[in-house]
């Protein structure tokens, strides 16, 4: 199953130099690999292992996750608005499947 249900909450426009907070969330169980099902069989680990964000093509934030991050990983971080440019948010699981969200930030003087 490919990754889906990724959401990004951020302002669409900001003044140059303003700090804006970006909140992201992806629906995912972050299965630890420590649990067993009702038949006593171990449930295999299934986690989002990597999240990254680029702004105008340059990396601004990256995170390596483990099963120590809660299910439905919520990640909030901040950037400074410098240019009108596209932000690309990417989540990747251990199988290499990805979810991508693109947003454009409009920066005014």
């Amino acid at each position, binding site marked *: 199953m490919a990754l889906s249900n990724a959401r990004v909450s951020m302002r669409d426009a900001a003044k140059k130099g303003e*700090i804006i907070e970006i909140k992201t969330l992806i629906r995912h169980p*972050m299965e*630890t690999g*420590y*649990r*067993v099902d009702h038949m006593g069989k*171990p449930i295999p680990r299934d986690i989002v292992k990597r999240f990254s964000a680029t*702004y105008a093509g*340059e*990396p*601004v*934030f*990256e*995170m*390596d*996750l*483990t*099963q*120590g*991050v*809660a*299910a439905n*990983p*919520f*990640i*909030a*971080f*901040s*950037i*400074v608005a410098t240019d009108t440019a596209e932000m690309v948010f990417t989540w990747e699981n251990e199988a290499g499947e990805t979810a991508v969200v693109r947003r454009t930030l409009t920066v005014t003087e």
Partner: protein
Amino acid sequence: MKTLTRRTLILGAGASAATALLIGRAAATTQARDAAVAELTGGAAIKDGRVRLTIPAVAENGLSVYTTIAVDSPMTEADHVRAIHIISEKNPIARLFTARFSPRSRVAKLSTNLRLASSQQVTALAEMSDGSFWRDRKDVIVTIAACIDGG
């Protein structure tokens, strides 16, 4: 910020006792935490300060503990935060996550939700561009532990 009441204290004590029984397997220890920290720093000295770890003193539910980490840094090419690591003392794995920043980030701050296996001390370690390491540590009482024993 939640205040400590007699009720939460009793709940906390009960939950810690229960978790102590539950986490027989593969639980990280203080030694594992120190080893994870040493692996990240490569033996470099760690100073306290510059990092602010904000985490509840009493977490109702270990499955999701809201945590914020911020680092004082000008975030310039010459002086910026390279990475923030969160290290657990009692979880099955010591390093919970690593977040990486660039000067382009301009602000070294993030929030996320942690899973905590039991009451423990959580360490935030910031790695600076000059190779120095800064640390903040907070004790967290976990009332309901993240279930890790297969229950």
